[in-house]
C-alpha cells in the first residue's frame, strides 16, 4: 500500500462517514454493507478480467444463481410435498434430464458420422419428452401446495451461513458449463455466451415456481444475525443502548447492520488475502503471462484453455458467493429485481475505474462506484430541480423531473468511458 492508495481508501471512508454525520448512520451503514458486497463482486470479476482477460457479461446470472442458495439451504423444509408423486418424482425427473445429457455426450464421443448425428437427435428429442413427462405432473403436485405461501420444495433448514459457499458452488457449476463451450474460441464468444446464460438463469428463476416461488418471491429467509425486534425486546440490550443515550430502535438497526458489516468484512479480507497470495504466486504470474501473450504462453507448454476455464470458474464462484450474501442481507429473494445494468455493468464500471488487475483497485472501485450509484440519483434530482426551477409547470418540467432517475446510467457510462480513455489502468494500477 503506497501513500496514494491509502489516501484513496481514506477518501472513500470519509465519504461514507460524512454520509453518516450529515444524513443518518443507517443509510451510511447501508452503503457500507452493499459496498463490501460490491467489493467482493469486483474482486471476482477482476480475477476473470484483470488476471486473465476474460470478458464476462453474465455476472447478473451468477449473482442470481448464488442467491438461490439461501432459499435452498436455509428456509424450513416443506415436508408436505416430499411425497413419491411430488418432490421425489421431481428430483428423479431432474436426474433423468442430467442422464440424457450425459448419454448424449457419451454418444457424441463414441460414435462418428451419420450414426452420431442420428443417435444424438433421437437421444435428445426422446430424452426431452421423457423428462417433460416425468417432470410436469410432479411440478403440478408441488406447486399446488399452499400457493399463497409455499408452492415450492422448500429448503433444508440448515444455517444460512452454509448457503454462502453453496451459492459459490452453484455459480461455479454454471460457469463450468459456459466456459467449457465458449472458451478456446474468440474472446467475443464468451461474452455472448455469458450474456445468454444470465438471461436463462433468470428466466428459470422467474418461472419455475417449485424451485424458489418464481416472481412470487421468497421472504423471511433466516438471518445469521439477531432480529431488531428481539434486540428491542431484550432488557440487556435496551439498558446497554441507554448507556449511550441512544434510542433502542435506532440502536438495534445500527447494531444489526454493524454485525452484517463485520461478517462481510471478514469474508472480503479473507478473499483479498487469498487473491493477493494467488496473484503473487507462480500461478498468478502464469495467468498474467497467458493474458499478455497467449501464443508465447502456449509455446511454453501452458494449457491456455484449461487455465482460462479454471479462473473463469473461480471468478464466477465468488460472484455466486456475493449473490448469496446479498439475498441474506435482504432476507428475501426477488428474481424480478435482477437487472443487468445494476448487476453486470455496474460491476464492470467498478473493476475498470478501480484498476483492473489489481485486487485493491477492484475493492476501491467497488466502494466508490457503489457510493456514486446511490448518491447520483438524489444529486440528479437536485440538479434537475435547480435547472427546472425557472420553468413554468408543464409536461416538459414533469418529464425532466421524472427522468432524473435515469441520470445515473448516463453518469456511470460516461465515467467508465472517460476512465477507459484517459486512465485505462484505473485508480490503483496493476504493478
Amino acid at each position: 500500500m503506497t501513500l496514494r492508495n491509502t489516501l484513496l481508501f481514506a477518501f472513500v471512508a470519509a465519504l461514507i462517514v460524512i454520509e453518516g454525520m450529515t444524513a443518518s448512520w443507517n443509510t451510511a451503514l447501508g452503503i457500507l454493507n452493499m459496498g463490501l458486497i460490491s467489493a467482493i463482486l469486483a474482486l471476482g470479476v477482476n480475477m476473470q478480467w484483470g488476471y486473465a482477460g476474460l470478458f464476462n457479461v453474465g455476472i447478473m446470472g451468477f449473482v442470481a444463481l448464488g442467491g438461490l442458495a439461501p432459499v435452498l439451504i436455509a428456509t424450513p423444509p416443506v415436508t408436505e410435498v416430499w411425497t413419491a408423486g411430488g418432490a421425489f418424482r421431481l428430483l428423479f425427473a431432474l436426474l433423468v434430464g442430467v442422464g440424457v445429457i450425459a448419454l448424449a455426450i457419451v454418444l457424441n464421443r463414441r460414435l462418428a458420422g451419420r450414426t452420431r448425428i442420428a443417435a444424438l437427435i433421437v437421444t435428445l428429442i426422446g430424452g426431452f419428452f421423457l423428462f417433460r413427462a416425468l417432470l410436469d405432473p410432479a411440478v403440478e403436485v408441488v406447486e399446488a401446495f399452499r400457493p399463497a405461501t409455499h408452492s415450492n420444495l422448500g429448503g433444508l433448514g440448515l444455517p444460512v451461513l452454509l448457503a454462502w459457499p453453496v451459492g459459490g458452488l452453484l455459480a461455479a457449476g454454471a460457469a463450468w458449463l459456459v466456459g467449457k463451450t465458449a472458451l478456446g474460441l474468440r474472446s467475443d464468444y464468451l461474452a455472448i455466451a455469458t450474456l445468454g446464460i444470465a438471461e436463462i438463469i433468470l428466466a428459470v428463476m422467474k418461472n419455475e415456481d417449485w424451485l424458489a416461488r418464481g416472481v412470487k418471491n421468497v421472504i423471511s429467509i433466516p438471518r445469521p444475525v439477531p432480529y431488531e425486534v428481539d434486540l428491542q425486546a431484550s432488557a440487556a440490550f435496551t439498558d446497554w443502548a441507554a448507556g449511550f443515550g441512544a434510542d433502542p430502535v435506532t440502536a438495534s438497526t445500527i447494531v444489526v447492520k454493524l454485525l452484517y458489516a463485520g461478517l462481510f468484512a471478514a469474508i472480503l479480507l479473507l478473499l483479498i488475502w487469498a487473491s493477493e497470495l494467488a496473484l503473487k504466486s507462480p500461478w498468478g504470474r502464469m495467468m498474467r503471462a497467458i493474458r499478455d501473450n497467449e501464443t508465447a504462453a502456449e509455446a511454453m507448454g501452458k494449457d491456455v484453455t484449461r487455465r482460462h476455464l479454471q479462473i473463469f470458474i473461480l471468478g464466477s464462484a465468488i460472484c455466486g458467493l456475493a449473490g448469496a450474501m446479498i439475498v441474506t442481507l435482504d432476507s428475501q429473494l426477488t428474481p424480478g429485481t435482477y437487472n443487468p445494468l445494476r448487476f453486470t455493468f455496474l460491476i464492470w464500471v467498478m473493476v475498470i475505474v478501480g484498476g483492473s488487475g489489481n485486487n485493491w483497485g477492484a475493492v476501491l472501485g467497488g466502494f466508490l462506484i457503489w457510493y456514486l450509484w446511490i448518491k447520483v440519483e438524489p444529486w440528479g434530482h437536485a440538479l434537475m430541480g435547480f435547472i427546472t426551477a425557472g420553468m413554468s409547470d408543464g409536461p416538459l418540467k414533469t418529464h425532466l423531473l421524472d427522468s432524473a432517475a435515469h441520470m445515473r446510467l448516463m453518469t456511470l457510462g460516461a465515467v467508465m468511458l472517460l476512465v477507459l480513455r484517459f486512465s485505462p489502468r484505473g485508480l490503483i494500477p496493476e504493478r
Partner: protein
Amino acid sequence: MDFLNAIVALLNFVVIPATAYGAQLALGALGVTLIYGILRFSNFAHGDTMALGTGFVILFTWWFQSMGLHFGPLPTALIALPFGIVVTILFVLGTDRAVYRFYRQQKAAPVILVIVSMGVMFIMNGLTRFVIGVEEIRFDDGARFVINAGAFKAATGLAEGLAFKSTQALTILTAVVVVAALFLFLNRTRTGKSMRAFSDNEDLALLSGINPEKVVAVTWMISAGLAVIAGTLYGLDKSFKAFNYFQLLLPIFASAIVGGLGNPLGAIAGGFLIAFSEVGFTYAWKKVATYVLPESLAPEGLAQLLSTDYKFAVSFAILIVVLLFKPTGLFRGKSV
C-alpha cells in the same frame, strides 16, 4: 377441410409471426455482422442503438400526428422513419468520432472495443430512458389488418381465422426492399466493393488506396440505418419498451453467429432460423395437431415444448450447438 384448417392455423400462429420476427432479427443481425466485418468487434450497443433510434422515430411520429399529418392506411411512423434514421446516424457517427476512433488508431484489442461498446450501451440506455421513458409505448396507427380473421372466416367458411396484421406485411416488405438495396450496394457500387475488400483483407485494401475512415463511416451509417428500421418495425409489430430492445441483443447475436459473423447472407439466414425455432418451440401445437391427427392420437395437453418465457433459451441453445460443432457458423464467417 381439417387439413386446410391446420394449414391456416399454422400460417396464422407460426409462419406469419415467425417470418415478421425473423425479418426484424435479420435486419438487426446484418448491422451486427457488418460492424464485425469492418470494425472487427461485437457491438454490444446495437440493441440500444435500436432502442434509441426507435425512440427518435416515436418522437417524430408524435410530432407529425400532432400536426395532423397521416399516411393514409400506413402508419405515420413510416414518414418519421427517415428522420429518425438521420438523427441516429448523426448520433452514431458522433459516438465513433468521440469514442471508437481513438481505439481504432491505437489498434486496441477487439475485447477492449467490446468493453467500450458496453460503456456506449450504458449511455445510450440512459439516454433512451431519459428521452422517452421506460413505459411501454404503442405508436402504430393506420389500418390494423391486411387480412382480418373474421372476414377471412366469413369468406372461406373455414373454422380457423387468418389474421395478417398490416405491421407484419410492412415488416416483410420493408425487409425485402432494404436487404435487396443493401446487397446491390455491397456488390455493385464502388463504396460497397471497397467495404467488402476491407472486410476480407484490411492490409491489401489499404494498399490499394481505400480510405479506411470512409469505409468505417459508411459502415456505421448502414448499421445505424438497419438498426432503426429493425427497431421501428419491431416496435410497430409488438410495442416499444426500451428494455425489450436490450434483450433482443441475444437473439440478434445468435443470428449473426449462427450465420457466420461477418457474413451478411448468413445473418439473414440466421435471423430466420432463430425466429422460426423460437416460435416453433414455444407455440402450443395442440390446435394444429388436433386438425391433422386422427382423434385417438390427438394430444391431451397444450403440446407446447417450452413456455414462451424460455424463448431466449432457444436462441441460446442454438448458439451453443453452433459454437460446439461449427464455430465459424453455417455460412462460414470470418474467424473462430
